[in-house]
């Protein structure tokens, strides 16, 4: 991953306080275009707060944040149009069918019905879900739901897609198929910003950052982090950083 690539997310001295509690303490980092960026941290380290700010859902207390070239303070609407979002908790409407969900989210992002129809065919073919188009989401296995949710999150060809623990509880085969989809999106130029508790998944990322107590403690490629921390896996690195007193 060359440094010549442009930055798609730039964060400078980001601070977010809730009363006296500092959720994000002076974060600075960049994410490059087309990169798979792993955003790791213990529970309560401040990941969710940071992701919310990057998605334009919450304003920082101070600091400079640019996402997809737009300023987080004045241009949140433009940011929202250029990003996709998917989480473990909310992704699709359970009581709508596969096809209805696609049409709904396509419509939300202002895609014409003809284009939606064409792209829907490609999408369903690629996922092998053609026969399931009129089935309710509620009846699908979790792995399929999440793969579909991801396809829908990038349906409007956003420049960045935010994935918040997208594979929690998904079976091991579907989890890997999911990551193959992530690679594919990345190779098409979509930047992927992902949080996960599966440490093996952290190894799939181009670069990872590890947060603890509101600060970014480390940020580099998985290989480099393992070298610096003399660890065999990202999991070891994570444990050393997140709870230094324990080891």
């Amino acid at each position, binding site marked *: 991953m060359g440094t010549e690539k442009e930055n798609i997310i730039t964060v400078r001295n980001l601070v977010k306080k809730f009363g006296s509690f500092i959720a994000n303490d002076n974060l600075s980092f960049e994410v490059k275009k087309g990169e798979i960026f792993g955003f790791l941290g213990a529970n*309560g380290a401040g990941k969710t707060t940071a992701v919310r700010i990057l998605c334009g859902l919450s304003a920082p207390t101070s600091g400079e944040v640019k996402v997809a070239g737009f300023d987080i303070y004045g241009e949140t609407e433009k940011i929202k149009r250029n990003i996709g979002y998917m989480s473990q908790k909310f992704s699709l409407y359970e009581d709508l069918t596969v096809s209805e969900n696609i049409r709904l989210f396509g419509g939300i992002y202002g895609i014409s019905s003809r284009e939606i129809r064409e792209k829907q065919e490609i999408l369903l073919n690629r996922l092998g879900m053609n026969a399931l188009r009129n089935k309710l989401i509620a009846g699908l296995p979790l792995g399929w739901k999440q793969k579909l949710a991801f396809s829908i999150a990038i349906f409007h060809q956003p420049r960045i897609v935010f994935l918040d623990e997208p594979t929690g509880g998904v079976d091991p085969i579907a989890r890997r198929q999911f990551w193959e989809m992530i690679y594919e999106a990345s190779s098409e130029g979509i930047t992927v910003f992902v949080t996960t508790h599966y440490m093996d998944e952290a190894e799939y990322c181009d670069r990872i950052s590890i947060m603890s107590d509101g600060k970014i403690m480390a940020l580099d490629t998985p290989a480099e982090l393992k070298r610096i921390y003399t660890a065999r896996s990202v999991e070891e690195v994570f444990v050393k950083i997140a709870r230094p007193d324990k080891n």
Partner: protein
Amino acid sequence: MNKAIESIKVSKRFGEVVALDNVSLEVNRNEIFGLIGPDGAGKTTLFRIITTLLLPDKGSMMVLGLDTHKQYRELRKRIGYMPGRFSLYQDLTVEENLSFYATVYGTTVRQNFELIADIYSHIEPFKKRLAGQLSGGMKQKLALSCALIHKPEILVLDEPTTGVDAVSRKEFWEMLKKLKEKGITILVSTPYMDEASLCDRVALIQGGKIMDVDTPRRITEKFPRRIFHVSSDEMHRLIRDLHQFAKTDSVFAFGRYVHFTGIDDEVETSELDKYLSDQKHTNVLVEEIGPGIEDVFINLMGQQ
């Protein structure tokens, strides 16, 4: 002495969905038994039958030698259960939650404090805090304390580590080991395959069926296939190219490696080396390795 749990041909369906299909299983006293499988595999349903909360459609379930259908009253006193959604009262403080569960089981916090002292010490500084304001890891520890406060003989934990970070997970498993030393039988479910190695014995479950039951070591030892892990500088292209390879049976990403099995296990490292260098991959590494639980699981899933 009888088994901690004896499940005999248990089946359960909800409408058209078969949640459990002819599940037979034995859990020994004082072991850590892991039920490993993804969401929707039937783990929660099996646990609810074990904890007398559901009745099987077919088959029978004996826990501590008691029938979960007829002797559920007696059983409920002796089982500690931690449901998947940590059943804490969000508007009660840490202390209040604990003492509430103690009174429900007709005991007091002080009476059995020794058992939870170690775990509780992690959350004691926050004992006046509302449970709703705890972080995931602390909620998990409080829920475990609540499930233990009546000194159960068997502890049933439904996905206690889901959504919890890797560090808290590690701490949690250390706690379980200590509880085992105190003579408690522990039944735990998890979707994280790497946690299997921390159990004495595991059952792999998928689609309501038990695919295998054994010690984690034996499960991987008896794995019949040859696995190669492969890496190169370009992970995504590596996966794509391996899918194209004529002798490929399966290709799955595992961390920074790809796990590869060949058709009929007749592929040799040299062949892979050659194929990948033909595809212009750099820094190629191909090695035959021993399988992990996840390899076994994926393989068994494929067979179903």
